[in-house]
């Protein structure tokens, strides 16, 4: 494989690659390179922050003051968890697993203000990221956060709530239009009474659970929730839906039916995610020119990529959260149940200008305005307080030593090669020739400030 192709693999299956890493891999075959991704992701290391004893959170007899206090503390812990996740993405050991976790978080979209439950949920994504899709769906469906997020509590035998059943089919497994309204009504009954206890463990509240006969996808029986999920996965459409979603994220948002058919053939009926991903990364078409350098980086990919070039550490956690927010992708805070649309949807005039400025903001301590940290200010007074410190230098520690070790010996072309996945536009090339490229630090920042760097 040539360097561009190795870089492609590392951008899509990981979060980019730096010159020294690339150097060490250059002689390896495709097979060896891909195998390494799976070897290094064999284990799953949970993401964990520290929580206080949480039994009191669920208590109903809390005063408004106490509730407020807990909410405030929980918001802090969610920030902590967000930061821990970003740091994990910046320095992953199980590279492919972390990349897949980020992908699944935008597939099984979920949000929770309880930091214990959402941490559990996040680790379910991580543990199942390369496992069996069928187990994955069942575990997600039984997680406390998802049960809460999709109104399981309101789903009772006496008055079924269809929210979960609908999202399960529309967003998680089949895609819109591949089931009937009757399928939703009937399957919602199978999930009645599904709930969780204080620790976040799954329970079925038998009193609220409908054990009667259900008709679902032409079958009838006293189906339980797990049965429903199994019947859904028997539909080849489910494999197709997942393959298309994986293809548009990892390969190209323009779907190639021929490639999808090959993937479905691999994926169905075993639903082994690792096998499917290996198949993609070993295929010839994954490395086709039309798939390289055509994807608009998500804000997290953009940040992770800059970190790959110059390792950075955010000294003020809130600034990292705020950056994610104004760039349009705040981890653990998805825009809605359907997740971020991605692609050109990341870009508007404001986000693009910020994205282009990001390298200089992060690496040369340029000022950015930091107004409006939280969407719903606790109070107007708080707003006024924050108003006073609205403009502040973003506080970051850059690791220029690592940067120098990677870039000091490279010439302008080599730097361009490693930073750009796309061939620069004619005009950009002209400009680059005019720029003095003797200082790799300045040159890298200049390259990363071009629209070309927005693609991977």
């Amino acid at each position, binding site marked *: 494989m040539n360097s561009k192709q190795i870089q492609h693999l590392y951008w899509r299956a990981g979060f980019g690659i730096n010159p020294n890493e690339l150097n060490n891999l250059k002689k390896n075959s495709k097979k060896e390179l891909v195998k390494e991704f799976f070897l290094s992701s064999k284990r799953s290391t949970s993401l964990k922050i520290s929580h206080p004893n949480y039994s009191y959170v669920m208590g109903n007899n809390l005063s408004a003051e106490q509730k407020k206090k807990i909410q405030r503390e929980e918001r802090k812990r969610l920030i902590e968890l967000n930061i821990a996740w970003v740091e994990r993405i910046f320095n992953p050991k199980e590279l492919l697993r972390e990349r897949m976790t980020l992908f699944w978080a935008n597939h099984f979209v979920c949000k929770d203000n309880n930091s214990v439950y959402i941490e559990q949920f996040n680790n379910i994504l991580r543990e199942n990221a390369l496992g069996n899709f069928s187990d994955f769906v069942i575990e997600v469906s039984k997680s406390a956060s998802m049960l809460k997020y999709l109104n399981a509590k309101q789903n009772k035998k006496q008055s079924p709530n269809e929210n979960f059943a609908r999202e399960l089919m529309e967003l998680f497994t089949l895609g819109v239009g591949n089931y009937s309204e009757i399928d939703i009504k009937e399957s919602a009954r199978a999930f009645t009474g599904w709930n969780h206890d204080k620790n976040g463990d799954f329970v079925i509240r038998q009193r609220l659970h409908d054990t009667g006969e259900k008709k679902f996808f032409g079958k009838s029986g006293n189906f339980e929730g797990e049965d429903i999920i199994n019947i859904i996965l028997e539909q080849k459409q489910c494999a197709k839906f997942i393959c298309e979603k994986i293809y548009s994220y990892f390969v190209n948002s323009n779907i190639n039916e021929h490639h999808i058919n090959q993937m479905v053939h691999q994926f169905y009926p075993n639903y082994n995610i690792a096998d499917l991903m290996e198949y993609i990364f070993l295929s010839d078409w994954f490395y086709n020119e039309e798939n390289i350098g055509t994807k*608009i980086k998500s804000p997290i990919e953009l940040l992770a990529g800059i970190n790959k070039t110059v390792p950075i550490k955010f000294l003020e956690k809130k600034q990292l959260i705020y950056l994610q927010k104004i760039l349009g992708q705040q981890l653990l805070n998805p825009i809605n149940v359907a997740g971020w649309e991605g692609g050109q949807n990341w870009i508007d005039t404001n986000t693009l200008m910020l994205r282009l400025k990001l390298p200089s903001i992060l690496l040369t301590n340029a000022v950015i305005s930091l107004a409006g940290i939280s969407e719903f200010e606790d109070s107007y007074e708080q707003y006024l307080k924050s108003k006073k410190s609205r403009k502040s230098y973003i506080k970051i520690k850059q690791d220029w030593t690592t940067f120098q070790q990677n870039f000091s010996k490279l010439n302008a072309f080599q730097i361009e090669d490693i930073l750009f996945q796309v061939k620069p536009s004619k005009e950009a090339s002209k400009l680059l020739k005019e720029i003095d490229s003797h200082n790799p630090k300045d040159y890298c920042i200049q390259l990363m400030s071009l*629209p070309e760097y927005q693609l991977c």
Partner: protein
Amino acid sequence: MKRRNFIKNTALASTLFYVPSFVKAFNTIDLKSIGYKRLVIVQLSGGNDGLNTVIPYNNDIYYKNRPIIQLKSDVLKLNSELALHPSLAPIKNLYDQGYLTIINNVGYPNPNRSHFRSTDIWHTASKSDEYLTSGWLGRYMDSFGKNPYNAIEVDESLSLALKGKSLSGMAVKNAKQLYRNTQDPYFKKVLEHHNEQHLSEHNLGYLYKTMIDAKNSAKYIYNSTKTYISNQEYPDNPLGTQLKTASEFINSGVDCKVLYTSLGGFDTHFNQKGRQDRLLTIYAESIDAFIKDLKKNDTFRDTLILTFSEFGRRVKQNAANGTDHGTANNVFIIGENLQKKGIYNDGPDLSNLDENGDLKYTVDFRSIYATILNKWMNVDDKIILNDTFTPLTFL
């Protein structure tokens, strides 16, 4: 290139710096104001308590449910049933002049009580179980916008409401600062070599096109507004500042059809009274200054102001002297040319609540959007809302 000429012209026009503003205003009216309608939106974030904003002051159920946070003696009476919150005197003044329509019980079927989700629903004009990635004003931009500055959010980043599929609005908090950002000498150099004709349709072309848009838009807005100075005094609060900026865009003739502003802090779960008093004072005083400013420049007649909140609050107060998330709420429409002035429809029926003890909606918020799109902005609302709504008669 037409746009370039236009920018040149506005740059020339900036020599009008010393002309008194009323003369300039006169000019802009002649040139563009005829049939030029603008929509200003004020979003009250956090869920404003509608029942203590427009108070059913003769209703026993109201008083029974709100023993501590009820408003009684100093409310501003509108008719025999409804009154405005005491902090809203300037709004009462608008009501008296026929510049205000209050639409009661605005909501949507199967209401969602989450801030984020309900805000999304209002922003995208979706059904409550439908997830859209473009906003209603973004879709207006897709179909009828030409430049990002046709819809401006006076803030740092863009709300979903203004995000379109092919063309989004832009966020401008400070025209000068935005201009400076886009005039970064390096970016200037980057764009020196590019022009729109040569851009490919692919993602790279799209990025360059957006970059050119950003630069041109920032320059256009800056050039249009830099010579205009409002002599109206605004209250020093976040909404006042936003509306002042909005008035500068409007009165200097920036080609924007939509201006989006917001005021946060309405999530009053505890000790609601003092907080809501202050917030509504901010709202009323800012709107008051804004309208005075527009009137001075004769732009009020072409401006319509829509005020909404993502939901109202529960009828029954909670144990912390606050209120929890509710459903239907009132919406204010402010303008000079209202067809149905004052109170548009019956106030909430407090004896007929849903299973949570929340108000039942009687007016779908999308029918308000449809009315504004159709009768004020003169576009086909069905293209934007993907559905048919019976227009209301306030316009």
